[in-house]
């Protein structure tokens, strides 16, 4: 088939898809929640400040022990922190600057990271000299933007500036599955909490969020209502929806089972791009970190901002709620991480 015919057919199908998606829309999230009590007060403050990086903090990830976290920075360092005491337990120097991705393994024994080196590497934390026990897991043809362990320490899922995601076997360094469909740099990914090991979502500079079947490698759903790069994506705790944060200064909630956008979190006064998003334990609060240094808290059911949290002195680049929901950690270009509770 010729390019022109293909392009024409793609356009027809896109219209059909939009029609299909509209057919079953018989309710609106925000209207359905009008009778629910609004959140009147959010009493969240900075509880800890983690200082030690010499460059912009680019990524962070919590350990399942709900106490330790790993962070990476523009200075080429990876730090492992005890967040209760703010002590640094490991400092690993990488061969590259801009370490844009890091992840704590489910067992807490390893951390994965990478960035402008295009590589995803793993360090064992229990060894005395983790840096000498580094293991290469996989290499992309452009920078590593995000990574996450897939249910165990044995597999890592990576997203890259080469516009692909790849599932790797840690032990052999073999590619298990690759995911093609983004038309721009992949910026973020998240694994489904309910369809663990079967479904994940990725988002990127093509303004789209793609939902993938991990076994077949197929893109099963695509959401492209953002008007600019999507920087962050996170599943709703039930696994039935996910939220995105974008350079268009909005966050959006997409419902998987209706295949639709169900809420937009934006305000005229919010002008800067959103770099990071996550939910509180129940899913009622949405934390969103922006380039104007603010951590905004949104009421998910009302699409209203309920708090503006100040503290960082440069853009908020990453954030994650502790696995048990007790606190939220933000990382910033001001070189610090802050823990809010």
């Amino acid at each position, binding site marked *: 088939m010729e390019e022109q015919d293909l392009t024409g057919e793609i356009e027809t199908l896109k219209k059909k898809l939009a029609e299909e998606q509209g057919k079953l829309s018989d309710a609106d999230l925000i209207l*359905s929640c009008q009778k629910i009590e609004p959140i009147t007060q959010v009493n969240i403050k900075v509880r800890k400040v983690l200082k030690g990086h010499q460059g912009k903090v680019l990524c962070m990830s919590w350990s399942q022990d709900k106490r330790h976290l790993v962070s990476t920075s523009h200075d080429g360092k990876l730090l492992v922190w005890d967040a209760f005491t703010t002590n640094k337990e490991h400092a690993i120097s990488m061969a590259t600057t801009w370490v844009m991705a890091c992840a704590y393994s489910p067992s807490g024994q390893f951390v994965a990271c990478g960035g402008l080196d295009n590589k995803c590497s793993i360090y064992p934390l229990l060894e005395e000299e983790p840096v000498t026990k580094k293991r290469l897991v996989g290499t992309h043809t452009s920078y590593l933007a995000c990574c996450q362990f897939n249910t165990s320490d044995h597999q890592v899922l990576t997203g890259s500036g080469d516009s692909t995601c790849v599932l790797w076997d840690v032990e052999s360094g073999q590619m298990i599955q690759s995911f093609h*469909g983004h038309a721009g740099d992949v910026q973020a990914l998240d694994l489904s909490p309910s369809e663990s090991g079967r479904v994940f979502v990725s988002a990127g500079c093509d303004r789209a969020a793609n939902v993938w079947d991990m076994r077949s490698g197929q893109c099963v759903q695509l959401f492209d209502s953002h008007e600019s790069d999507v920087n962050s994506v996170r599943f709703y705790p039930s696994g039935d929806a996910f939220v995105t944060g974008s350079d268009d200064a909005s966050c959006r909630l997409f419902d998987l089972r209706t295949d639709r956008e169900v809420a937009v979190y934006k305000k005229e006064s919010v002008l800067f791009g959103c770099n990071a998003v996550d939910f509180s334990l129940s899913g009622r609060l949405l934390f969103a970190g922006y380039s104007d240094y603010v951590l905004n808290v949104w009421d998910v059911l009302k699409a209203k901002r309920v708090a503006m949290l100040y503290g960082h002195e440069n853009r908020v680049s990453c954030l994650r709620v502790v696995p048990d929901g007790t606190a939220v950690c933000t990382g910033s270009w001001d070189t610090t991480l802050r823990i809010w*509770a």
Partner: protein
Amino acid sequence: MSSHREEQVARLKHELEDLSRQCYFQRLKTSTTISEIIQYINSHVQEDPLLNPVKDNPFNPKKSCELL
């Protein structure tokens, strides 16, 4: 030049396949899924520490009496 063209055609074919599959995706009504989203929040909101602060949050500063 021709390999670039082949790549482009392969990419378009891939996109077409994705779209045809996505058209047949089994969807639920928004009234069903939205009430389940709300239900999930309602059943977990009491135990959400960032909405209903817990007394012994490990990240909070220790009270002075505990220091003595």
